[in-house]
């Protein structure tokens, strides 16, 4: 990695003042599970690294009437140990899917949302859009077995976030701090598909820090199902996070979010529509799962992910049907 200045502020204003106005000036360090690899591979070469782990207000999990607040610095392990979080099985399952104690001990909730894609062209230095010097889209034309099957017209990487899909399904919001003051963004809107190589894949600006996650109150039945090649540490091939409000035995409203199939956590609106007002029968679950993958635009080598996404939705819904309501 290239040499950089290092700062370890203990307050949020100090930290914000240390960030730059342009990408490349400074990087935020929390768990470091992603940043270190970005630095070592020279994908990021910041002039300054700002360690935010000493900022106490960015930690902790608090239940409130309005819902649940999760500090950005909460580790995945702390998340799994929290009795408050246990009420959200979709979040628990997604965190547990990070199948390495080391990653769960070091990796933070905020870091999971902000981590950069694992696209092998991006990591080899071809940029977020995976273009070679002639402008050729390497991800689209090359080996795209792990790439996007939705929303892949410009960018083909998949969002690497494990917690993005369940948080989007729970209609959570992230709080972002900057020198101008805090702002709140729904998780669903936090993730963005870059249009050019200078864009990032989320709403965070170079001088901003994600500080906390807010999950609204209200009872939902929810689940996440994850398909991985390996049971040991491995990136999911496809996931589905589903959160339902129930009216008796029928679904009131549904939020169905697919993971690792698009540059963003992918909202499956057709599946949500298919579920609304219907019971969780096997036939209805099959219909919703099928609806979830309609409109998929698989690339040459990732057609199998359509089936995986369909199965993930089906199994997440089946799990909810098994839950005691």
């Amino acid at each position, binding site marked *: *990695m*290239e*040499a950089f200045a290092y700062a370890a502020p203990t307050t949020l204003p100090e930290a914000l003042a240390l960030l730059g106005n342009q990408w490349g000036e400074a990087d935020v360090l929390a768990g470091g599970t992603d940043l270190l690899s970005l630095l070592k591979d*020279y994908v990021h070469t910041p002039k300054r690294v700002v360690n935010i782990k000493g900022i106490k207000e960015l930690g902790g999990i608090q239940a409130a009437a309005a819902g649940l607040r999760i500090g950005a610095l909460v580790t995945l392990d702390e998340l799994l140990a929290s009795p408050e979080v246990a009420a959200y099985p979709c979040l628990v399952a997604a965190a547990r899917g990070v*199948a390495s104690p080391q990653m769960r001990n070091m990796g933070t909730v905020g870091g999971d949302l902000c981590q950069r894609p*694992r696209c*092998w*062209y991006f990591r*080899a230095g071809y940029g977020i859009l995976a273009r*070679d010097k002639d402008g*050729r889209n*390497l991800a689209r*034309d*090359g*080996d795209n*077995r*792990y790439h996007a099957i939705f929303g892949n017209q410009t960018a083909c990487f998949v969002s690497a976030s494990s917690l993005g899909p369940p948080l989007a399904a729970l209609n959570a919001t992230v709080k972002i701090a900057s020198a101008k003051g805090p702002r709140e963004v729904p998780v669903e809107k936090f993730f963005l598909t870059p249009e050019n190589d200078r864009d990032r894949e989320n709403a965070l600006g170079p001088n901003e820090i994600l500080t906390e996650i807010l999950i609204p109150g209200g009872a939902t039945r929810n689940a996440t199902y994850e*398909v*991985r*090649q*390996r*049971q*040991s*540490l*491995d*990136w999911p*091939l496809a996931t589905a996070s589903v959160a339902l409000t129930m009216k008796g035995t029928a679904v009131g409203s549904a939020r169905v979010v697919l993971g690792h199939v698009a540059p963003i956590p992918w909202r499956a609106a057709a599946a949500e529509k298919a579920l609304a007002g219907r019971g969780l029968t096997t036939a209805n679950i099959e219909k919703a799962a099928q609806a979830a993958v309609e409109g998929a635009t698989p690339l040459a*080598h*990732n057609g*199998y992910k359509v*089936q*995986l996404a369909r*199965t993930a939705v*089906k199994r997440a819904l089946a799990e909810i049907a098994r839950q005691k309501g």
Partner: protein
Amino acid sequence: MPDYSWPPTEKRRVMGRRLSRIDGMVKATGRAKFGYDIKRPGLLHAAVLTSPYAAARITSIDTSAAEKTKGVAAVEIVSKPGTMVQWQGTEIVAVAAETLDIARDAVRKIKVEYEVLPHVVNEADLAKAGARAKPAAEQVAGDPDQAFKDADGTSEGFYGLPVITHCTTETHGQVIEWQGDKLEYWPSTQALSSVGPELAKMLGIPAANVHVMQDHMGVGYGSKFSCDRWGAFGARLSKASGGRAVKLFLDRAADQLMAGNRPSHFAQIRLGAKKDGTILVWQSRSWSTGGMTGGGMPPIPYVYTKIPNRRLNHTAVQVNAGGQRAWRAPNHPAASYLTNCAIDDLAAALKLDPLEVFKKNADYTAFPEVYRWQLDKAAEMIGWKKLWHPRGDSGKGAVKRGLGIGVGTWGGAGHASQCRAIIHPDGTAEVELASQDLGTGTRTVIAMVAAETLGLPVGAIRVKIGDTNYPPSGSSGGSTTVGGVSTSTRKATTDALAKLLEVVAPGLGAQPEELEAVGGVIRLKASPAKSIPWKAACKKLGVSPISAMGENNPKLAPKEGLNTGGVAGAQIADVSVDTETGVVRLNRLAVVQDCGLIINPKTAESQCYGAAHMSVCAALCEERIMDDITGRMLNPNMEFYKLAGMPDIGEIIVYLDIRPEHDKRGVIGLGEPPVVPGIGAIANAVTNAIGVRISVVPMTADKVLAALEGRKA
């Protein structure tokens, strides 16, 4: 001549016991020093600039900015301008600096210009190989055409294994330091006794001037026999820095690209047989690559070598990728996979139980009775009678279960090895060999053999290996180490003991040959009460230690009978396939292996566990992925180069076939044999579960789902 033969089973006191490795504690606590851990005064760290292109000509190199970088001690151009680069990862320039970070930063300042040339990096589709395909002459035995006419049934299939890499836990490299005109050299090697002379030759210095040391190393799997180019340019960097020690270990990406790999193998295979399953004819069209050298034909038909009618065609394909190296049981896992899948498909075509077909044809093998016995044993262990079902007949539900068979063979006779045994007047017993412990337990079995011979506890033996000041011993390849070092140690300690017995015999009023060393005493065989403790016996040496040399000479070994080669193995896999996700899980793998006389059942079984683990990796998740467009390896890491983790392995059930007829053959190496049959067994189990063949491993979700849908992956 003294009697060196192994004690009979019932008289073994140390050999045959399930002992933990004697170096287990130092490894578990981190006190063991690997080459990577060597720290020398003024140590420099080296980094290597490698080619980003798969095919290119170097037109210019400008190292001036690197040389001017503060902290850089030496810059060595490895590939001069004009050099044709033939794979990504080719070493161009090496830099030694005060820290690794400085070396890496300096490497990034080197400007290299290339004329980029067209590349070919994939060979799975032979039709696309063009001029890179180099067909060999057809080999024919018997009359294959007539045999196909005579056959009651035939089967045909396509099977393949991609290139995989070694993924050694410790990457390749060394610490090296000039001291005057002599080299102190700490590599990570499988060949302690031969890397020194090899390096000396590359550097043009006398072989005696290289001193090689290695206490521990992080496995090699066949990829660490050479001192390698980086040994030579590491030495040059040290010389250019005024003799300062230089540490140069490849990073993981470079290791994946240039430190060897296992060649791919693909084959279209057709078999013809009688309706009872007796194979009449084998026909195959195979191809493979091991980089720019192409790839040789695997030994097919494998194990069933005596199939009377055969037609074989093979094509070597050159690709712009790093060169092949020996990989644990070179060519055997591939040949086993190709052959076992073809036989399994034949059984299905004839609607026969594959267990019966594998046994029926055992007369075509070198060990018919052993294979039949082992297949039955593995079948019993896995519950074949209860669980096997005809192909694809797996019942309802998304998850299908299946069983599959694989067989293998290997040599494993001991390599050339010399051992010096020393008994000191204070009772200390030492054995010295310039051998190496790859993590297999070599150190431990040497101690056990010495302890057995001298009648001492294992802890009383000082095993000194890993230094070329000791007598030379062979490289650890071909599963030859345990046979070699156990024989040389047995002979050296037997002779050293004989000298001690001569000294103590008069005091016991006996002839030396009437004495034995057992349980820490020297005693009369005829009246064990008449004895002298080991320490008291050694005290009689005064101030002069005894030493004796022992040697394993592979040419004489068959006559001596302490070690031999030639083993058989059979494995049966039990898998579950989720047909909605395409994810395959290994439930159990039954491993039956013959292996001669076992010195330590625990370390022997560990070899089987490790080997089975590697089979699971190759069968289910591991492959080198090359990008047609950029010519690069897309997964030169441990992230997308997927190895099976602990939860992915399933239950490995090991049965070591140590019936007396195997024990009496002497010691046989076990490093390689158990890695051979597993991939075929797992592939056949998956086919049994889902009813269709996934032709090319690893059987990842994409390929399984494609096979289920009947489309090409």
